Every structure is written in C-alpha cells, then in structure tokens.
C-alpha cells in the first residue's frame, strides 16, 4: 500500500516524539551511536512503508520498538561474522568508540561493560526491562517470545551481570 499524506503526518509526529527514546534504546543494544541512529531510521522507514496496516499509534510504537530490537540484533549478527571477537574484552566502552560517554561514573561503566558481555537475547531483555521499563508481557510481545521465556532470560541475565560485577576483574 502506498503511503498517504496521512501516513506522512502521522509518522512525522511519531518521529518527533519517539526518535530520541528509540535511539537511546538502540544505543544500549548496539554499541555505537551511528549504528543506533541507522537502526532507528530504518525502523521509521519500515513503519512508513507499512502505515496502512498499522494504524493505532500504540500499535505503531510497539512496531517501532520491535523493529529497533530486531534491527539491532541483525547489526550485531552481521558484526559477529566480520569480527572474530564479537564481544570486546571487558573494561568499559571501546576506546575507539567516538561517542563513548566520557563522563560516565565508574560504577556505571562496570554495569555497561557487563551488559556488553551478555548473550544477545539476555541483553535485550535486560535493557527492555530496566531501561525501557517494559512489563514482562510487553517484552514478550516485543521479542515474540513467551512471558515465561522473558522471566527466565531476565533471571539468567541478572545472575550473569551480578557474577561479572562481583567477580575478579
């Protein structure tokens, strides 16, 4: 279905109100801002193409969120095939990461370093739960998995982070 001017206005409004939180979400899922921006732009482009079948704005926001998570995942997968070591060594954000948060407190850096070492799904669930503050049911919908799987994945993720934070570093 060809996007209408209706779609233009509606998606533009969503872009103004939701771009920033979605970029922040993507930024926690992929490791650099440039990629995060790309992923979010792709999500809005996909929403714009499909506007005819996604009308309620709540459905649209859910669609965007799922697109961002899926887009982030495929970026990471692509990266993994390029690099031998998909998860950089612990020790905070990469030095070559141009937009590394320089002013970040050490205690926060440790948490983020631990986050980056989680398997993809655990990282997604942890970010959606503790940053996006979605409910377990919303996370299940976003990721297309059961609530039970959300609970168990979150639990494993928390345990892994706790172990990384508590372990010898």
């Amino acid at each position: 279905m060809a996007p209408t001017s209706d779609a233009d206005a509606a998606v533009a409004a969503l872009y103004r109100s939701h771009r920033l939180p979605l970029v922040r979400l993507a930024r926690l899922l992929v490791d650099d801002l440039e990629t995060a921006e790309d992923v979010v732009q792709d999500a809005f482009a996909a929403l714009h193409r499909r506007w005819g079948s996604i009308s309620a704005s709540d459905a649209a926001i859910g669609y965007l969120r799922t697109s961002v998570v899926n887009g982030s995942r495929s970026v990471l997968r692509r990266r993994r095939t390029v690099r031998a070591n998909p998860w950089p060594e612990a020790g905070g954000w990469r030095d070559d990461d141009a937009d590394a948060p320089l002013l970040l407190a050490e205690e926060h850096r440790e948490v983020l370093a631990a986050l980056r070492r989680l398997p993809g799904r655990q990282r997604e669930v942890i970010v959606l739960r503790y940053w996006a503050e979605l409910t377990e049911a919303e996370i299940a919908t976003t990721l297309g998995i059961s609530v039970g799987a959300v609970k168990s994945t979150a639990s494993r993720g928390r345990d892994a982070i706790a172990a990384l934070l508590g372990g010898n570093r």
Partner: protein
Amino acid sequence: MTDPHLERRLGEAFDAAARSSVTDAASPPPPRFASAPTQPRRGHSRWLAPLAAAAVVAVVGGSVLALHGSGGTRHRTVPPAAEAAVHIQLAIAGNHSYGVGMPVVAYFSRQFTSAKSLSAATSVTVNGAPKHGAWYFERSTKPGYPVEGHLRLHDLWPANSTVRIEVAAQRKSAGDGVAFGNDIALTFRTGPKVVAVVEDRKHEMVVTRDGKPDGVYRVALGAASTPTTSGIKVIMKKSPSVCMRDVAGTYRECGINDAQQLTYSGEYLHAAPWNVVNIKLGHDTSNGCTNLLPTDAATLYKTLTVGDVVEYPDAPGPPMQMSAGYGDWNVPWRIWRQGGLIPS
C-alpha cells in the same frame, strides 16, 4: 529471585549511558523515511519541510553526527502545553476482528474530573450508522496512566459489523482547567455473536454462534476453597501455552496449553490433561480456572476469539467485578452511563 539493589543499579547505569551519549539535540536529524522511493521528490516533500528547515546536521560519509554537544541546552520536542493535558492512549489494536463483547479500552495519563466533553466528542458508528456509546471510568494499574476508561453500547456490539470510534477530544475540557491532549480513532470488525454459557450445575459449557448451537463441552470449575467467580466474562487474551501459579505462590506450573484468559487474577479456559477424570465426573477441583479436556480445549482455542463472551450464571464464587477483567457487561447500563469514577 531478584535483587533490588542490582535492579536499581542497572536502571541508573542505563539511564546515565543513554543520556550521556545521546543528548536531546535541539535539531534532530531529518527522518530518512522522507526520502524513501515512494516519495516523489527527495527532500522536497511537503510534510518534511518544517523538520528539514529546523535541522542543522553535519552529514559525513552518510552518517549523522549532530547528536552530541548540544551544550546542555535541552530542547523539548513536545510543546509544554501538552504536559498539562490528559493524554489518551488506546489499549486495543485497530483493524482487528473481535468478539461482540470486546470493550474499547483507553488509558488516561492523569486524573481528571469531568468526562462530559469527552462523551460529547465521542462518536460511535456501526456499519456507518450512529450508535449511542458511553464511557465508564475506573482506576488503572498501568504506570503513568492513573485512569482507565471503557466505551461500550447498551448491548453487545452487533455481530459481523464494522465499528468506527472517533473521539475528537483534543483541547476539550477535562474539568478544573485541564484539557485532553489528543484525539483517538479506532476501527475494528466484529465476528459472529459467540456466547459460551458455563453451567456449573451441569458441568457443561454450551456454545452458540449467531444463535445456533456450536458445541457442548465438559468442564470442571474451581474447588470449594477457590471457587470460580460468577457473572459475565470476556476472553481477554489467547496463549498457546502459559505458566500459572496460585495466589499464595505455593505452586507454579508451566506448559498449560490452549489457554484463554478471562480475568486479570488468572481465570482461564484451558486444557487440563491431568484432570481428565474429574472433568468427566464433574468434580470441581481447579484453582478457579475452567478445566477442559485437551481435545475440547484445542477446539475452543481455534473457534473462540478475543472479545467472545463467556457467562457463568451459577458459579459459586463472588460476582465478577468490572475491574477483574473485561467485566463490563456486569455493570447495569443505568450505572454505566453515570461514568463510574469520573462523571460523564
């Protein structure tokens, strides 16, 4: 098991990372979807103009670098006026087909004192013909949305129809100097009129579809200590498999199949392969759920839809409350029209 300290630490770290690396730039990058192939002229689309004009973006090698260093000045993309407004968020998806008992549910972002203008701004049509709908409000449990409103007609939605809801509430008064922040609109279809009546006395569930018999199924309901609530329920959600626990949290079990949810507290229609004998004998033994033989549960999972009505005229438990699920049809119309929490 969760550790509140770890959870808080995660939240704070993510928040710090997100804010420090992605600032609320005064000029967001222009949306790329604007230049999608479906747009006739790249960058010259009529609707893009205001965004493009506002954006001062350095584009280097195709990547957008305009997001850092906005000098700490935070620019609000939402006009300040919106913060004093009641934002309305629809809770059900449009362009779906629902059963005839489906309530239209919306959440409201702050408390308000009058729904009179909301009611006046609400139009309901069924197959294009105007119908009289009314809002009823309750407290919500959704974070950030303290009020939940349900919109329905006097009777169930007409079967096999197209329902269009339009609420032109933006800038209309919500009482006490507060106004609604947005309009909402929703179109959905209704399926056939499917009503399932669960008779505890006979341990049977009798289904009719547009008035014609559509099957009789054996059931076992809640045990005396955990009786099934009585009254009119509506299928809220369908899950091929769910986990359940009892209220006390003493047991938890997963892999319960063909589950159709009827209350927030966790009454479901579901397959109970472990309870086949009691279902056949008509012994009420469940925690409140309607236990079905596995083949029957599979059939009903296929034939029933979200929004279909399930009545429990003689269940021994307390009456179904409005807020226990989609309890809308237990509220008499003369009470409903008064609006509940907020006069309408």
